[in-house]
């Protein structure tokens, strides 16, 4: 092969500022095998691509090297351009002279120029050993798994189900609804959270295209885009929800009222057999083993007696079911930062000085949502937990955990400024002679109608905002003494409060890391899942066929979570719009003659894409064992190549011959 075209991109100023492009191009033209070398301001633009197409035809190019940015950015672009001119796309390679050269070295230095030429020469050598490849075709299962039944998961499920695709929705709690089901009213329009959410929940429960698994968790995920095999663990509920009619006689009659209610964040007690909240979907009860007298002491059994439908089953066991899907949407949501002193991870140092868990009237914002909610433990009247008195002075503390490096959470939880303003407003609407105080660091109210909303809380509903932190909360004579600072006034502030509400940071839901490891998703140091590209691929992940939405990705409010859920659903629809999938053919293959069958590759393959196989002669006698790659599972990571002692595995597109040739190009 000796007809290679090298196309050098200026990337505007990004590359051109480091080189004399004419000189660089001349140097590259000298490389043996290079038929033509051309530079252009934006090679990825249409005129740039047209240049590539034109040269492929006019110079009868046999391979193309584009010297520009990272192949992550534009390899697909240039391969498509080459394909349009009739060249096999896998005969196109990129030399990254932007991230790996112009961005990181001194412009015009001799060494900088020499490195760029070397990178290009290396790539020219590589492409000499490239082979024309054809994409791998794999079938596509047009069903989707949605993990998490909060508002994001509900939105994604409904969008997909309404567009005609079957959806498997897995929720680990006994009901869908997530955190939003427990909220009072939502900013900035103050519409009632349940009023807008519960119809959507009912829709999910009744949708013919949605298969709902509540009180279930994803046990394992196998396979790959288009062909995932999901095992779901349906946890024992001790109530057969097929038989149960939802009459809830069991709930009415259960004598136990011991356990703190999960839905009310411990503000009330619930029964041993219970429906998490009246609007739950499915509206079917569940038995909590830890508070049920039948389980604890083999007494009672009232529910068993009163159930006309024989739906109570104390011998219920966890069940594993499998589902085949082609795409996965992860919407596992968030949890609150644990405010107490004790933390599961020492990195997240707690706020012992605020007395949360010690003083009953120091509560977190989700608990306050329940106090405000018409369906809450107080029927929507603001009464404090300790004595049920109506608090006349309430202190709200923002950024509890958030933006505090000392507490291990440098990020902003984004929603607290808004809901704190909402809290002051709703409080004022319910307790007209009450006074709300807010301690804040900054007010972050970017969003449609958001800043106006906060101003309304301050100006119309009289919330008093103090810019500063609270150092300590103590209890004296039934009052909470909040000692803080107002840095704008330059003076310490002490408030005798009846109730303190802490706006704790948002953290990803528990168990999300285990799920991420099962699905092979990336996550950041805080456990938030990683998107594929922060701007251009915000709901895609680096695992093909897996999408993320909602607060599992980063702190988000409801409108954003819903928008992102619809975006994820849209991406799944794009995937499903095809008849079959094509995969990149850059996968590993085994030289079965030289394979020693030690199966180190089988043990190390992160995608379980390598199997033990037998080679038999025509009489059917076993000649030898060998490792064999399943090309529809292989992601081309190359771990097998690295681990093979006899170098019997090779990776198409990054073959040993290519790498060797690249090294040869350098020496």
């Amino acid at each position, binding site marked *: 092969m000796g007809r290679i075209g090298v196309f050098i991109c200026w990337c505007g100023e990004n590359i051109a500022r480091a080189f004399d492009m004419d000189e660089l191009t001349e140097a590259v033209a000298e490389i043996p095998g290079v038929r033509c070398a051309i530079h252009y301001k934006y090679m990825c633009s249409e005129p740039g691509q047209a240049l590539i197409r034109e040269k492929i035809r006019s110079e009868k190019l046999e391979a193309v090297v584009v010297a520009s940015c990272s192949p992550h950015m534009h390899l697909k672009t240039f391969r498509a351009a080459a394909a349009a001119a009739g060249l096999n796309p896998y005969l196109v390679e990129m030399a990254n002279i932007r991230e790996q050269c112009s961005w990181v070295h001194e412009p015009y230095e001799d060494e900088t120029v020499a490195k760029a030429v070397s990178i290009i020469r290396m790539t020219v050598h590589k492409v000499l050993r490239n082979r024309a490849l054809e994409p791998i075709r794999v079938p596509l299962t047009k069903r989707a798994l949605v993990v998490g039944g909060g508002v994001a998961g509900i939105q994604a499920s409904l969008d997909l189900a309404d567009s005609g695709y079957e959806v498997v929705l897995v929720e680990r709690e006994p009901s869908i609804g997530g955190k939003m089901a427990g909220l009072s009213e939502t900013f900035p329009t103050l519409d009632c959270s349940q009023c807008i959410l519960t119809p959507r929940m009912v829709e999910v429960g009744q949708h013919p295209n949605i298969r709902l698994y509540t009180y279930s968790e994803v046990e394992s995920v196998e396979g790959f885009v288009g062909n995932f095999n999901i095992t779901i663990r349906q946890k024992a509920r001790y109530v057969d929800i097929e038989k149960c009619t939802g009459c809830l006689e069991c709930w009415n009659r259960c004598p136990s009222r011991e356990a703190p209610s999960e839905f009310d964040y411990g503000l009330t007690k619930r029964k041993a057999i219970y429906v998490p909240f009246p609007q739950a979907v499915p509206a079917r009860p569940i038995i909590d083993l830890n508070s049920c007298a039948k389980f604890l002491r083999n007494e009672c059994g009232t529910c068993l007696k009163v159930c006309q439908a024989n739906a109570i089953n104390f011998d219920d066991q966890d069940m594993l079911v499998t589902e085949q899907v082609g795409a996965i949407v992860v919407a596992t949501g968030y949890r609150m930062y644990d405010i107490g002193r004790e933390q599961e991870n020492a990195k997240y140092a707690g706020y012992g000085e605020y007395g949360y868990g010690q003083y009953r009237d120091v509560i977190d914002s989700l608990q306050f949502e329940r106090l405000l909610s018409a369906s809450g433990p107080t029927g929507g009247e603001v009464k404090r937990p300790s004595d049920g008195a109506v608090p006349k002075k309430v202190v709200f503390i923002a950024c509890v955990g958030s933006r505090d490096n000392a507490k291990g959470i440098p990020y902003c939880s984004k929603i607290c400024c808004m809901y704190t303003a909402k809290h002051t407003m709703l409080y004022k609407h319910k307790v007209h002679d009450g006074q709300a105080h807010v301690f804040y660091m900054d007010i972050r109210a970017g969003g449609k109608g958001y800043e106006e909303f906060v101003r309304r809380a301050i100006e119309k509903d009289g919330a008093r905002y103090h810019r500063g932190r609270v150092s300590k909360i103590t209890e004296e004579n039934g009052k909470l003494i909040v000692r803080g600072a107002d840095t704008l006034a330059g003076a310490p502030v002490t408030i005798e409060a009846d109730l303190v509400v802490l706006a704790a940071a948002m953290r990803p839901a528990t168990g999300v890391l285990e799920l991420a490891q099962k699905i092979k998703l990336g996550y950041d140091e805080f456990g938030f899942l990683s998107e594929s590209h922060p701007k251009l691929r915000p709901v895609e992940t680096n695992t093909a066929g897996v999408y993320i939405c909602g607060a599992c990705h980063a702190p988000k409010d409801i409108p954003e979570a819903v928008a992102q859920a619809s975006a994820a659903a849209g991406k799944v629809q794009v995937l499903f719009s095809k008849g079959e999938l094509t995969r990149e053919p850059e996968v590993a293959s085994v030289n079965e*003659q*030289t*394979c*020693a*069958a*030690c*199966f*180190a590759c089988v*043990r*190390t393959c992160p995608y379980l894409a390598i199997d*033990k196989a037998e080679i038999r002669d025509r009489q059917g006698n076993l000649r030898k*064992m060998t490792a064999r790659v399943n090309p529809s599972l292989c992601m081309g990571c190359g771990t097998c190549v690295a*681990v093979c*002692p*006899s*170098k*019997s595995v090779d990776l198409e597109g990054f073959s*040993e*011959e290519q790498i*060797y*040739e690249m090294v040869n190009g350098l020496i």
Partner: protein
Amino acid sequence: MTGQLRERCRRLLQDGAVQVVIGYGVSTSDGMPHPIFVRRPDDVDKLIWNEQCMANLTTYLTRDAVKALGKPAIVVKGCDARALVVLEQECQIDRSAMHVIGMACAGVGSPRAPKCASCDVHVPAAADEVIGEAPAQTGPADPPYAELEEFLQKSPAERFAYWREEAARCIRCYACREVCPTCYCPRCIVDKNRPACLDTSATVKANFAWHVTRAFHQAGRCTGCGECTRVCPVGINMRLLNQSLARAADEHFGYRAGTNRETPPIIGAYGLEDKESFIR
């Protein structure tokens, strides 16, 4: 013990329990023990056992020509038996399709082989039968990496000079590879030529590449039988290189090759608790 060994092997061959015994016999050239393959009951008297039975016979188990002889019985010392575990972990042998005769051993060679000083397997583990008793007066074993530790007392410059000297003497006969039980690849990487990964000429540079690559391929796999060093015609002490990697596996992963068939091999097993501190 030789008599006991012969009787057992006669029985095994007569009963058809095995088709071949891989053991030690007397060489006609130098009178020293050499590997022999006994296929007839009448030939079992050729088998011997004494302190000069150095060879690790497990290396023959993976040879096609030996496999063609049928189900084997194999004579192993405690140190040799560790190779069986590695071969089984790496799917090279079917342990249930062979009979392993373990020989209790107080040490081999005169003078004693260096490996015997730190021996802690005088009685082979996991053999199908053991002949002989555990030696009575074996003193406390040396720490396992004593030879290496002593070598590491030298400065890096001295060590480099030492290996440069050793590499200069290597004639690339590959006896070290041929004798090694865990070097079973049908095509060694050094024989690969598209592309050729390793220079095959016997120059200092190419020999360095060979010995370093060979040692790295033994990481977490070498059981320390020392055969590579024993058979080297120019006397290169490859045990030092092997021990260096064995010690790394031991220190970082608490892993000693061939001691436990239940532990997954370190190359290929991944745990979240794996240390990363040594990655620099």
